[in-house]
């Protein structure tokens, strides 16, 4: 299992702040998870549409689609940051 977190406009778009999902066997990456999310329904596929500006962090460090995942990882999805 990995923990998925969603922040800000992305959280509102998918209407979910946190969930746990099973990791598929093999060598799962962020891309594997994103494919699973896109397959859920129109809202999720729209939120993760290619070209749309979203960011991902794995275990609280910036990551990308190729970042490998292992059980227990914390994967966070969010829009570009706007603090400061």
């Amino acid at each position: 299992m990995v923990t998925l977190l969603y922040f800000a406009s992305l959280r509102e778009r998918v209407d979910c702040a946190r969930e746990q999902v099973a990791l598929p066997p093999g060598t799962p990456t962020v891309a594997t998870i994103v494919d699973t999310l896109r397959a859920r329904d129109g809202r999720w596929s729209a939120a993760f549409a290619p070209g749309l500006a979203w960011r991902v962090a794995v275990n609280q460090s910036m990551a990308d689609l190729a970042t490998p995942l292992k059980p227990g990882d914390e994967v966070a999805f969010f829009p570009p940051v706007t603090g400061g």
Partner: protein
Amino acid sequence: MAHVRVQEAPFDAGREIAALTEGRRDVGAVATFVGLVRDLNDGAAVSRMTLEHYPGMTERALEDICAQAAARWDLLDLRVVHRVGPLVPGDAIVLVAVSSAHRGEAFAACEFVMDFLKTRAPFWKKEETPGGERWVEARASDDEAAGRWVEGGEGRG
């Protein structure tokens, strides 16, 4: 070295600056930046703002940015304080204060930390405007500001 805080409560800029200099005789320069909520953003009146963040990652990201600054310039100390939660125009959002022996390094590091914070620390602003609530969009100008420090080695430092 760096001192990083994320908090709902207001901060006192004078006290943060004093914390960098009190009891020291080797500080020649303190550069400080304070960012505040404006009542106008992207052409719309702003009556309120809420700052969301990613607890845990936020502190790590800010500490990492400070460490990068400390590796790049000869600094004595750094402080970053960032507020989260509900804010109104006029409220201070963020403070970055950097101490050094000489001013050039303090200025450069302070601006570097702000530019990186703006593009790499997980904070998100939601504004209340006459047209309703809206998430603030990331600015291309902020990406450009952060990019200056990467291209060509020393950037504006």
